């Protein structure tokens, strides 16, 4: 039920990171979710898809691994970086 707020927090964290990398295109978001975190994976995926549907992040995949206990962490981002313009 609160997965929408959680998805939004993920999105905000990712956006913050991506503004520092204007040339990068996001391909994957790594999350770690523990069994006591109170977050349901499929619900989080659904909410995240809805949030990014009309953004440049819509192609990004959520890579969710089982974390320890109550972990709810953003572990990594995977990006494709455009080559610096050589002209």
């Amino acid at each position, binding site marked *: *039920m*609160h997965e929408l*707020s*959680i998805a939004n*927090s*993920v999105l*905000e*964290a990712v956006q913050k*990171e991506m503004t520092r*990398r204007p040339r990068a295109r996001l*391909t994957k978001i*790594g*999350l770690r979710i523990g*069994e*006591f*975190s*109170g*977050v349901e994976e499929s619900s989080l995926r659904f909410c995240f898809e809805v949030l990014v549907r009309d953004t440049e992040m819509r192609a990004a995949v959520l890579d969710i691994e089982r974390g320890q*206990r*109550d972990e*709810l*962490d*953003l*572990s*990594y*981002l*995977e*990006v*494709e*970086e455009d080559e610096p313009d050589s002209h």
Partner: protein
Amino acid sequence: MSQIPIERKVLNANDAIAATLRERFLEHDILCLNLISSPGSGKTLLLERTLERLAHDTHVAVLTGDIQTDNDARRLARSGFPVKQITTAGACHLDARMVETALADWKLADFELLLIENVGNLVCPTSYDLGENSKVVLMSVTEGEDKPLKYPGVFYKADVMVLTKIDLLPHLEFDDALACENARQIHPGLEIIRTSARTGAGLERWVAWIETRLHRPAAA
């Protein structure tokens, strides 16, 4: 393709506010408890009875969260202690920002105990740190014994479980030993206090649990 390590908590914006609250509570020697349960487990009644039983010189304030209505705040305000309703307008949990906002016009130095009644929900409030010293989980005997197994997060994070409505046990097939065993399977050693707000059973122990945690200077 390159991987950028981030390694941060998803809710670190909430956690940062919660950390500030925790510092302020510590600075003013305030014990803050965050009460979490399913809707209808008896949080408000337990609080009403708690407020009646606390020593009269206890400086206590209450925040109560609900999606709609200020019914609970009106009930609790009869105690004469400062009570404020947080209406979340749809949100299924309180977050640290809501608590910070609700406390803005209270002078924390006036209090030694802050009781927060979270929105009735066993799942979502678990994820949001409010700066509390302890989470308190309530479970009533009209719920299933396997509730701790179905919703482990809050039982894992709580420092105490209050089993409520035990006056109803003779009328139910609820196996309270099994319920406690399930809770301790998730949280070994979890302290469990069996109560009935109606008959008063166990309330003395519950109030003592709170009072021993107040940050009062040791008697000279």
